[in-house]
């Protein structure tokens, strides 16, 4: 019998207990991975392909404040700016949905192609959207179209939580290819007319000529409206996205504390299981001592066993999470399409594996200390 088989046999001699401790490590690490991936998806949202050249301009007061439409000409004249489009969040509710399930933006259809090159749609669909003869034209992302079984030519009415009048739109295009194929776009001039909110837009989306122009364009836009009645904040699309993270407030802390409690509980459970397993074997360990095994060898036995069980649990838990989230649409289905990406990154898996390793080590310390302290005679005297 080699040392390795000796350890393995020991670990598995109470199969039920081994299974339970592997499972508890697995479930806990699965939860830790889920929480961390969720947090990451919220705090580090994926970046769109064309984002590096886009600037978002919002009111300096807050994103909920409108900007005057007359700002457009001033922004267009700023050197380095190639495209400008209004971009107004409508906040529409689809049919009988209780909450907002996808976002709608009013914009200038002619600027869609230059601004969002990644939007894939047939030329006919583009033309129909850009054609001013279709004032109620709108295009929807493929995900939303699939979800609600929408097709070209369908008419939909959306009630807004922000504007008083609903909009009635006709679908002229279904697009794909962006990072979030759920949004809907329709004409800003139609929104103006329907709601009577003419002359105001939500935000400006701007495309710069080259990445080198970025900083200078942002500064110029900010400066152009400084000390005006509608001061603005221009920032890169990425910075704009990340500004929502700060609004989450204590949610980040909430997730971290939960992870902490899970890990702490796991340490407790694993440590007690290990010490249970060792206590049963006190006499045997005393025999080993009597046979001439040294303390550090006994410690190594215990450590290897607890470490092995923890890592096996980690393999099941982390691997399970990876397989589940990578190859099944479970998250998107469970959240009704609200959360799209749920990427288990190597970094998160590495962290969870480290936690498992740490737990394996910590759990073995207590029992190992007891074993090393006890004299052979006392150990042999113990009854189960």
């Amino acid at each position, binding site marked *: 019998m080699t040392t390795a088989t000796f350890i393995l046999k020991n670990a598995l001699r109470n199969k*039920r*207990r081994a299974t*339970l*401790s592997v*499972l*508890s490590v697995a*479930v*806990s690490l*699965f*939860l830790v991975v*889920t*929480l961390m991936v969720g947090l990451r998806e919220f705090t580090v949202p994926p970046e769109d392909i064309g984002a590096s050249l886009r600037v978002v301009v919002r009111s*300096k*007061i*807050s*994103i*909920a*404040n409108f900007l005057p439409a007359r700002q457009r000409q001033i922004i267009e004249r700023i050197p380095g700016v190639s495209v400008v489009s209004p971009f107004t969040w409508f906040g529409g509710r689809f049919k009988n949905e*209780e*909450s907002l399930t996808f976002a709608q933006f009013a914009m200038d259809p002619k600027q869609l192609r230059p601004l969002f090159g990644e939007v894939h749609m047939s030329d006919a669909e583009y033309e129909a959207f850009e054609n001013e003869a279709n004032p109620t034209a709108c295009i929807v992302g493929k995900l939303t179209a699939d979800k609600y079984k929408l097709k070209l030519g369908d008419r939909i009415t959306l009630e*807004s*939580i*922000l*504007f*008083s009048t609903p909009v009635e739109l006709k679908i002229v295009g279904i697009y794909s290819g962006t990072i979030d194929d759920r949004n809907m776009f329709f004409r800003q001039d139609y929104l103006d007319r329907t709601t009577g909110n003419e002359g105001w837009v939500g935000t400006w989306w701007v495309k710069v000529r080259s990445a080198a122009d970025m900083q200078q364009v942002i500064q110029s836009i900010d400066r152009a409206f400084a*000390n005006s*009645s509608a*001061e603005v904040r221009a920032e890169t699309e990425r910075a704009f996205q*990340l*500004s929502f*993270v*700060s*609004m*989450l*407030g*204590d*949610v980040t802390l*909430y997730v971290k*504390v*939960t992870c902490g*409690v*899970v890990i*702490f*509980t*796991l340490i*407790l*459970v694993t*440590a*007690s*299981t290990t010490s*249970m397993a060792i206590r049963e074997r006190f006499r045997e360990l005393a025999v080993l001592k009597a046979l001439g095994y040294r303390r550090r060898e006994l410690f190594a036995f215990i450590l290897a066993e607890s470490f092995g069980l923890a890592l096996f649990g980690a393999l099941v838990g982390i691997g399970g999470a990876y397989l589940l989230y990578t190859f099944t649409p479970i998250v998107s289905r469970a959240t009704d399409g609200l959360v799209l990406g749920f990427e288990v990154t190597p970094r998160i898996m590495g962290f969870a594996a480290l936690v498992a390793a740490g737990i394996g080590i910590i759990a073995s310390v207590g029992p190992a200390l007891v074993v090393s302290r006890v004299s052979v005679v006392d150990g042999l005297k113990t009854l*189960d």
Partner: protein
Amino acid sequence: MALPLRYNVRNILVRWRTTLAAILSVALVVCGYLMMQGIPAGLQKSSANTGDPRNVMIVRKGSTAESSSQVTRAQFRLIPYLPEVAKDPQGRPLVSADTLVLISLPRRDAHGEANVSLRGISPTGMQLRPQAALVDGQDRNGKITASRWFVPGKREIVVSRRLAGRFAHFDIGDTFKTSGQELTVVGWMDAENSAFDSEIWMDSDEVRSIFDREHYSSVLVRIADGASIESFTNRIENDKRLPLRANREVQYYESQTQTAGFFQIMGNFLARMMSFGAMFATMNTMYAVVGARVREIGTLRVLGYRRRTILASFVVEGAFLSLIGGVLGGVLALLLNLIDLSFGTMGFESFSEVVVRFRVTPLLLGKGLFFAIVIGILGSLLPAIRAARLPVIAALKSV
């Protein structure tokens, strides 16, 4: 005949070393559950606590939220003279024309910005909202400073004490710029854990002028004692000049449940996942407990106790064990409840920072304990079955 409960209780206490980890893990899960559900409970409390039963809130017809509502000045001018409107001792009608604006402000810890709800109210506005009262605040140097209400017509604001802890420039005497104008903080208020704890207040007409708003957002009206709220809401509903709708203020806030619902679902999911860990711990412990008492079980069987009695006894023991854990977790959560912990995030309804106090309600405590007992029963079922199935002779012979 059932085994006496004392038998199980003593067993748990005697073998505390084995049972401690299981008890503590149940305690942690229950405490975690209560903490997580403490957030939606706080949010619910905040919606339930907001508004006065004698108040009616008027918004534009067809809008479900204050944020999408507009009341023109011409419409507003008609309201104070309606017969059901209450008057204060000076004879002024108790009506407040509110203007709601979101402003983006830097957080105190310099971690980015968040939206804050700024509510413009009429000079009678605070009389209509008796929950909100001034409290002593701090100035920039941490010195306790007395608060006062804003002076109508001045660019002064009163901020909620809970928000003051979270945003920069919210100490008394601080100023900050928004929309090109400088606002001065003159007071802190506490609104008894209501939705007003997530707002800052100033003079309504000042808000309209600073933020270039033509219209008010909503109108809050106190109905006189003896007058009927229904007759007032009907009057508004049927008045051709007013395309407005009146609702009880209390009702409006009670219907704001989305944010609470989200945290409730999330907390339930997490607690259920966490309870697996505690269940495995209980299972392990109970298997060890059964394993250590094989002879004892054999003896009991010889004495005439039936299999199902043994089964029940071990399930009860498991349930009791995790009940101890549950109580421990409950006490821990109650201790955390004593310190004034608040939680802030973006509310789905207001799109701005919502701050609530954690709340461990008696109902939640009950649910937590029930949760613990379920963990105990599920965790001890398999070990108990094993105990019940032990063959008598072999059990007696075992060492």
